[in-house]
Structures are given as structure tokens and as C-alpha cells.
């Protein structure tokens, strides 16, 4: 008959060949491969300081008849370390969810048990189908002064471990990031970008539980972010963008009174509106373009250099671009 045997990494394992006597002649195989007699002590198989690679099916056959006398599935693993537990309310005031994981794998099956106590009451945390290591609870009462205590116990064949979280209802409120963030240039406005977004769809009641938002943006070429906090509304116009520069923009959300900020939304990229470059064929037209560009915020020399370069050829164009970037970076420092 066959069964599963769990052993700790580093342990010494002795396998007996079922009911056979110690001095019986037997052959052991591991996953079908014969095991050398040096590992035997009589009919017992001795595995010292087992490691993960030694997991597998071990079979014991009677010497002469080659009858299968014993079979076991050896699984080498570890007892669980203290699990990592996190609870969060991204759908306040509906309820909250808890999710967990093990910091290191055990290599053998584990079972999890979660308990939630609110004051003296036991609450049931309903396990989610997907993802597996998650359960959710619905609030029955709101504005509670009593803390919630969540205990997660993880058990496997080699041991158990647990962790506890105690928190107030308001402390775990953290919305999901805003959705559908869109950034668009504003026609005829070279320094503006219009950003709009939506409340996260998991937030059930933005009317009674309004969110406030945090917007951050920077041109790709710079490392420092600029920040704007918005107490309401789901749109904002950036009015100090550097003309012609591609921007990266993100938004975060928070309940206006309690809890913590959400993670940053997916980043969107946008470049402010720039005037269409006109075709240059004569010197006269260069002068026209130059004087037209001086009215924009960017340093005119950039445009001038490039226009002249366009006349000469692609080689000069490369020089022009480099020169343009250098001047741009330089002028950015002065803004």
C-alpha cells in the first residue's frame, strides 16, 4: 500500500519495508531507480540530511520474488514560517478583505485558517475563489470604536505558525487607484495639459464617501515630480508644463477624511500642444517662422538652429537636434 510521508529538510529519514523483518533481503528504488546498498541498514532505507531533490516515490521489493512490499511518496519540505497578512478596505463602507502569503515556500501543501473577532463577536471571513489566499468581510455596523482582530494560522504536516493583526475600522481604508486616467494637450496652449480620471470602480459610494486626489507629473527628462492635491473633482489642468516636452502623469486617491492614499494609477504620457512646424523653402520664410516662434515660451534659438539645419541636410540635422536638446535643457534650468 502507498502513502505520503512528509519530512523536514535536513532530517534523517529511516524507511521500513512494511512488515518485513530487519534482516530480510530487499531492494529499494527511488522513482524507479535502484538505490545502492550502502544506504541500507538491513532492510531499512536510511536517508541522511534529506534535501528537496530527494522527494519522490520510494518502493521496496522483496529480494527474490520482486514483490512490491511497500511504497511511499516522500515529500521533503519545511514547517511554515510566520505568514504575512494584510487587511484593507478598498470598498468602504461595504467591508474589507484580508490577503496573505508565506514569506518562503514550504514545498508541501499548506492549509490556512483565518479568524476575525470584533469585540466579543466572531465574524466569518468569506474565502474568495480567486485569488485563493484572500477572504472578505461585510461590515454590519459602521463607525465602530472596537478594534478588529484578525488571526491567520497556517498549518502543514511539519508544523504550524500564525500571525495577528489588530486594527480600527478607519485605519485600513485604502482605495484602489483612480481609473481611466487620460491626459490630453490643450489646443493653442503650449504649456497646458488636461488630465481627467475616474473614481476607482471598487469604491461603492463616492457621493457619501467622497475621495480626494493627488496628482503628480514631470517631464520624462527630469527626475523631480510636481504635486497637486485636489479636494474634489476628477479633472485638473496643468498650466506650467514645459512646451514640447513629453510628460508622465499619475493620480492617487484617498477617502477625504480617513485612511491612507491609494497606490499610484497607471502612468499616462502626454505632450503639450505645439505649433505645427511650417515648410521652409526660402530665407524669407525662415525669418517669418523665427519671429512667430519668439511669441512662444521656449527659447527661440532652439527653433532657429533647427530651421537652419533643415536646409542643409540630415547630417546637420543630427547636430541641430543635439544642439537643440542642450539649449532646451539649459533654458529649462532657467525657468
Amino acid at each position, binding site marked *: 500500500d502507498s502513502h505520503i510521508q512528509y519530512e523536514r529538510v535536513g532530517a534523517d529519514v529511516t524507511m521500513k519495508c512494511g512488515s518485513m523483518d530487519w534482516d530480510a533481503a530487499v531492494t529499494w528504488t527511488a522513482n524507479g531507480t535502484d538505490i545502492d546498498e550502502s544506504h541500507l541498514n538491513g532492510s531499512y532505507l536510511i536517508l541522511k540530511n534529506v534535501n528537496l531533490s530527494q522527494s519522490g516515490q520510494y518502493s521496496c521489493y522483496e529480494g527474490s520474488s520482486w514483490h512490491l512490499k511497500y511504497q511511499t511518496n516522500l515529500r521533503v519540505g519545511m514547517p511554515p514560517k510566520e505568514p504575512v497578512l494584510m487587511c484593507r478596505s478598498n470598498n468602504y463602507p461595504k467591508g474589507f478583505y484580508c490577503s496573505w502569503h508565506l514569506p518562503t515556500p514550504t514545498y508541501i501543501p499548506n492549509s490556512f485558517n483565518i479568524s476575525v473577532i470584533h469585540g466579543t463577536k466572531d465574524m466569518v471571513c468569506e474565502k474568495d475563489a480567486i485569488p485563493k489566499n484572500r477572504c472578505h468581510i461585510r461590515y454590519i*455596523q459602521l463607525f465602530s*470604536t472596537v478594534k478588529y482582530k484578525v488571526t491567520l494560522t497556517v498549518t502543514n504536516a511539519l508544523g504550524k505558525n500564525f500571525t495577528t493583526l489588530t486594527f480600527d475600522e478607519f485605519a485600513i481604508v485604502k482605495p484602489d487607484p483612480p481609473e481611466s486616467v487620460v491626459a490630453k494637450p490643450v489646443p493653442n496652449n503650449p504649456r497646458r495639459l488636461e488630465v481627467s480620471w475616474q473614481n476607482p470602480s471598487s469604491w461603492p459610494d463616492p457621493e457619501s464617501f467622497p475621495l480626494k486626489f493627488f496628482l503628480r507629473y514631470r517631464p520624462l527628462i527630469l527626475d523631480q515630480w510636481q504635486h497637486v492635491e485636489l479636494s474634489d473633482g476628477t479633472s485638473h489642468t496643468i498650466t506650467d508644463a514645459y512646451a514640447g516636452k513629453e510628460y508622465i502623469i499619475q493620480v492617487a486617491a484617498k477617502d477625504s477624511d480617513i485612511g491612507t492614499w491609494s497606490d499610484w494609477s497607471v502612468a499616462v504620457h502626454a505632450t503639450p500642444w505645439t505649433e505645427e512646424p511650417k515648410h521652409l523653402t526660402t530665407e524669407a520664410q525662415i525669418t517669418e517662422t523665427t519671429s512667430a516662434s519668439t511669441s512662444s515660451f521656449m527659447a527661440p534659438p532652439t527653433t532657429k538652429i533647427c530651421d537652419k539645419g533643415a536646409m542643409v541636410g540630415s547630417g546637420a540635422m543630427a547636430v541641430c537636434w543635439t544642439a537643440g536638446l542642450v539649449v532646451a535643457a539649459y533654458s529649462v534650468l532657467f525657468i
Partner: protein
Amino acid sequence: GDSWGIFTFLCAALCNLPALPALNCSEELGAGQSIQQTYDLTRYLEHQLRTLAGTYLNYLGPPFNEPDFNPPRLARAERVPSATVDLDLWRGLTDNARLAANYRAYSRLLCYLRVLDGQVGTAELRHRLAHFCASLQGLVLSIGGVMSSLGYPLPAGPAAPPAGPPGVPAAPNDFLKKMDDFWLLKELQTWLWRSAKDFNRLKKKVPPAVVTLRLEARGF
């Protein structure tokens, strides 16, 4: 015995709030703006309470000032009005009921805080408590103002000391007294969070249009 009598007397004396002055200006400002102001006041008080509670719990000493302190609620603590409410019930509250619950709660909490003020040892605490009580009084008046401007009657003030059922005596020992103080501060904190949500809901449901109508009516 004696302490119970003193407590009753103190509460009766301190809880006879003066009649609300006629708040004509609130009608002109508009219920909408008063609600915003009341909302802002709750946020301000919540911020103030954080400092006050920290100082007070340190004054009470361990275990009250430990962050994990999570005692069970004793029956005696039910005297302090609780902000905890069934979710669906809270959602379904009428504007009047919502405002009245806030008004009643803060009136009683103010009363308890004033008693506390008379008992604390250090000058710093007395100063902080006095300042907080003044702000809390302002909140009660502000809520009253909103109710008046919306035409709702004010709930009857705590004429009798809010001591709860006669069977509940004053704290018989020092530790239980400290527990009472702990729960008072906790409930106050929770009420301030709840009020922010209550006033958010009211903000959406009482548009400035209500005020415009009233002003026009007065013009006739």
C-alpha cells in the same frame, strides 16, 4: 455615595446650556455654507483631539496609553453616546434625524468632558481640555444653527444629568474611572469621524437652491 452626588450636581450645573441665540446670519449664509462650516469644524476638532487624547492617555498611564490597548466594552461605558450604527440604518437616516443624532451626542459628550476638566491634575491638561471644550461648544452651536436654518426643531437639551439608568453608579475605583475616561475619548474620536461622513451626506442633499427659495419668499 458622596462622589455620586457631586457628579450629579456638577453635571446639572454645567449642562444647562444657554438658550441658542437667534442665528439670523446663518439663514443668510445659507444652509449649504453652514454645513460646510460644520464639516470643517469637525475636521479641526478631530485634529485637536489627536493631541489632547495623546496627552490625556499619557496622564492616565499604562495600559491606557499603549497603542494596542483593546479592552472589552463594559456595560457601564454605555452611558457615553456611541457613534456605532447599523450600516443600512445610517444610510436611511433623514436629514433631521442625522443632525439630531449629532447634536445630542456632542451635547452629552461636551458635558462629560466638562466634568473631566474639573478633575484633571496638570495645568497643561486643564488648558487643553478647556480649549477643546470651547471648540466643541462651537460645534454644538454650529449644528444647532444648521438645524434651525433648515427648520428643524432642536432636540431637548440634557436637562437632567446624562448619567444613564439610575442603577449605574460613578466609578467605584480609580481604574474603572480611567476606563470611563478612555472610552469617552474613543467615542468622541469616532463621533468626529462619523460626523465628517454625516456632513458629507448632508452637503450633497442640501443644495444652495434651498436657500435661494427662502430668500425670495422673504422678498415678497
